[in-house]
């Protein structure tokens, strides 16, 4: 394969001003990216964002510290600030919308706790930091999001508290807060304080819209601007392999779940498998957290209390562990094997239980005793069985073959040659499931067995490649209320293109096959999207579709000539990005 096509197959392509590496260096660089876990700090790219329509504030905190000029605020805004300061016990006087001595002192105290210079006067930036804090502290039904919070494109994201859950513990705390909030709103509804329609609206406003937006956005930024697109493409593969859906799993878990998968990508598959399976996101998505062993303590408690509850397992996750994550049904496991896995899985995902270990395992619903799976008896202590099972399943050559098949279908061809699958499976077996070796073998397999333009790109990949090509121009608006606002947001754009990652229809993830994506409606949307984007690009005059066509298709190639013959700029962009050779790699 040509290296520019390989870069579009195993990464997100290249921008118009990027120098393409030669084959040796490209492969060397690609393999290096896969060797160690890269940092994930996508917010850093916001400041580089270059779209005059967006008004991104790029000055950092240090310059702000010297900025003494006070922001002018109206009386309502001042009252809001006073209310917030009163709530945080920094301010004790009347809510009068008048910044007297008391308010100034309170502002200074607030500045002190937030490590700003204590001037008693709010700068523009401090005001926004305060608004974010206020947003988190107030009951959501009183929340009147200020304009600039509604439109995050005007917001310096590096300073906003985006509740990014880097630790699973934080994610779980957010998840529980979310439940409490929902319960509180339901109570308000029950008491006739708010109409039913408000329950969902207010709850969504505070929680659900936020994490989706955040997780799609962070991944988008890193894919489009970041230095490790090859690593990220494999990340994309694994979050789809261990798919969870926001309709059955709270969005609060997504960020941490995705990061957990990412952090395992330079280790062994068995560790990745284990960490994905016990993660509260997966536990909640496939409802294993509610599975109860029929002879567990919890079951006995129910029986003693004569609770009218059936203590039994839920085999949902157990079945998918065997079917989707490891052996596949071709392995011919039995219902007893599925039950065995389900027994081993009881006890995990107990985030509501105060008495769990750091992975949220609780003995309470766990089915005691030894459990058998595929002829092997698991005799370990309760919380160690799952780890042992994951190890065994990961060692199985049928798992190696399954992972190799999935990687081949994703990266090489819809109907990959057997040799390619064997090549990757061989790397899996030789390295005992080492993901660096497996990923690097996949890169080699793409070069060895892949053909140019043989893979039709999924909408998300196609979309990121366009934005990487043009050097950004991402729609970074916060979830808006009108259709027009929505169309300026990455999440809704991906939804319209038919591929919003967090909405995978079923646990087997998004399809790798062209036949599932090649439909008139989805193709029409690609045309429509590029048309919209072209209008924006034309105004900016930075991106040259004619030059880029030379770069991506090759100088003098039929694709490049076709773009060159376009009657105008918009048609040129559409001929470029909707060209069969751009939609494939």
């Amino acid at each position: 394969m040509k290296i520019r096509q390989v870069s579009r197959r195993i990464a997100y392509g290249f921008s118009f001003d990027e120098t393409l590496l030669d084959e040796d260096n490209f492969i060397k660089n690609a393999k290096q990216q896969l060797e160690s876990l890269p940092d994930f700090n996508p917010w850093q790219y916001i400041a580089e964002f270059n779209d005059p329509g967006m008004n991104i504030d790029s000055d950092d905190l240090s310059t702000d510290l010297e900025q003494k000029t006070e922001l002018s605020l109206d009386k309502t805004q001042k009252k809001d600030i006073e209310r917030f300061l009163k709530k945080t016990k920094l301010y004790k006087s009347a809510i009068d919308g008048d910044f007297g001595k008391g308010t100034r002192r309170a502002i200074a105290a607030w500045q002190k706790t937030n490590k700003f210079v204590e001037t008693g006067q709010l700068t523009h930036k401090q005001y926004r930091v305060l608004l974010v804090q206020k947003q988190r502290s107030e009951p959501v039904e009183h929340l009147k999001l200020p304009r600039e919070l509604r439109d995050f494109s005007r917001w310096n994201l590096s300073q906003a508290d985006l509740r990014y859950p880097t630790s699973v513990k934080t994610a779980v705390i957010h998840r529980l807060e979310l439940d409490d909030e929902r319960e509180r709103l339901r109570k308000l509804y029950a008491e006739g304080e708010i109409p039913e329609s408000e329950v969902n609206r207010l709850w969504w406003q505070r929680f659900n819209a936020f994490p989706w937006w955040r997780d799609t956005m962070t991944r988008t930024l890193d894919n489009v601007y970041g230095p490790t697109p090859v690593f990220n493409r494999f990340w994309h593969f694994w979050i789809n392999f261990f798919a969870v859906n926001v309709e059955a799993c709270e969005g609060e878990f997504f960020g941490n779940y995705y990061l957990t998968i990412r952090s395992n990508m330079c280790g062994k598959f068995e560790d990745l498998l284990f960490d994905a399976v016990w993660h509260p996101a997966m536990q909640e998505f496939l409802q294993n957290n509610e599975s109860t062993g029929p002879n567990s303590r919890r079951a006995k408690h129910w029986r003693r209390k004569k609770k009218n509850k059936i203590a039994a397992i839920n085999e949902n996750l157990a079945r998918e562990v065997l079917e989707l994550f490891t052996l596949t049904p071709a392995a011919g496991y039995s219902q007893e094997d599925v039950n065995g896995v389900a027994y081993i899985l009881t006890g995990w995902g107990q985030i509501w239980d105060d008495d769990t270990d750091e992975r949220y395992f609780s003995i309470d619903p766990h089915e005691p005793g030894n459990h058998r799976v595929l002829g092997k008896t698991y005799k370990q202590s309760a919380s160690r069985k799952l780890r042992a099972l994951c190890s065994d399943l990961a060692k199985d050559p049928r798992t190696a073959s399954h992972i190799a098949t999935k990687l081949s279908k994703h990266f090489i061809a819809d109907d990959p040659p057997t040799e390619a699958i064997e090549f990757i499976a061989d790397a899996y077996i030789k390295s005992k499931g080492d993901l660096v070796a497996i990923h690097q073998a996949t890169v080699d397999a793409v070069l060895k067995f892949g053909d140019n333009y043989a893979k039709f790109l999924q909408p998300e990949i196609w979309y990121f490649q366009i934005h990487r090509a043009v050097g950004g121009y991402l729609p970074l608006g916060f979830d808006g209320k009108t259709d027009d606002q929505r169309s300026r947001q990455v999440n809704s754009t991906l939804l319209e293109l038919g591929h919003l990652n967090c909405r995978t229809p079923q646990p087997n993830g998004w399809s790798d096959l062209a036949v599932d994506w090649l439909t008139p409606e989805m193709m029409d949307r690609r045309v429509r999207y590029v048309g919209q984007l072209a209008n924006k690009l034309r105004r900016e005059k930075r991106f040259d579709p004619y030059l880029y066509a030379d770069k991506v298709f090759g100088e003098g190639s039929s694709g490049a000539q076709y773009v060159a013959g376009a009657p105008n700029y918009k048609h040129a962009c559409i001929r470029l990005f909707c060209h069969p050779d751009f939609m494939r790699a």
Partner: protein
Amino acid sequence: MERRDFLKGTLGTLYMMASPNMALPDTNPTEKRLLVVLLRGGMDGLASIPPLGDKNLSKIRKDILVNGANDLDGFFGINPSLRFLGSEYHKGRAAFVHATSFPYTGRSHFDGQNIMETGFEQAYAVTSGWVGRAMNAAGFSSLAVSLPIPIILRGNDVNSNYFPTNFPKAGKSVYKDVKEMWQNDPQLAGLLDPIIGRRMQHGGRGDTRELVSFAAKEMHKPNGPRVGLLEFEGFDTHALQGNEDGHHAEILAELDGVLEGFKRQMGDLYDNTVVVTVTEFGRTASENGTQGTDHGWASAIFLAGGLVKGKQVISDWPGLGSKDLYEGRDLLMTIDARDVYAEVVKTVFDLNDEDIARDVFLGYRPEKSLGLMRST
């Protein structure tokens, strides 16, 4: 645990946003119409059409036992959420088949759905769908409509799909240009034709009722589609399934309301219509540990429309005793679902048994007639 149960249960509606896909194959104008409703996830036949006359039912189900089911024929009842279908049944315009499924016992969604859509006994062995092949056999070209085109409709030369979007439509010259650019591409050629010719402009996110009434309107047109396809998700009720209330009842009520709206929109044409449901498998007969049910085998099929010989529940009831159940847990299949679907497509597409065996179910020849259709 209990607080969470309450929350999840009461929040059911919040998760009901799943937008069904819809597909409308375009064909020559004929009188008969078909609406296929895919119930993804494995629909619980014992909760939708509970066998009230089987004394074992209340022994193996507690939290999820459906109370207040309305009697159908003295043995079977119907979930009160299926209000419209129940009343249609008594008017002789709806029928049910019970303890039916495809002959697949593997309990995997993905294999099961592939089999229910391809209509072949092995998963992933063929790439076309039984409805698509039936239309092909009848000599109809097709226009399919939805985001991904469901496998069940594949197998026709021309396919199209439709789903509302908020993206503004591109200009005529753009479509013309793209059409030319794609004309020699084996996968993309002609793909935009249905879009270019289409006049409808729908914004929004695809509310189910809106979509089905749109489907009905299109099916009304002289050259309109002959088959509509609607997808429902959310039948994979492993946890907190609910009984006459709760999650499962809510989806059934949604389905029921959608079918009622479809009938209203179809008007007189409803007399020449069959509505039929398809699901990958039924669920365990017993309740599981999370007030739900796991993957099972046999389920129920709903049939409605003027072409259906209604007011009957066709079943060779296998029983719910532990010895009666498949592997001691699933309702046994006693009627091959293909027998039911063969009758439907034979009627709607005027096909014979040879066509069915050759083109539709690829080697499978239904053995007996169930008498589900009115003679036309």
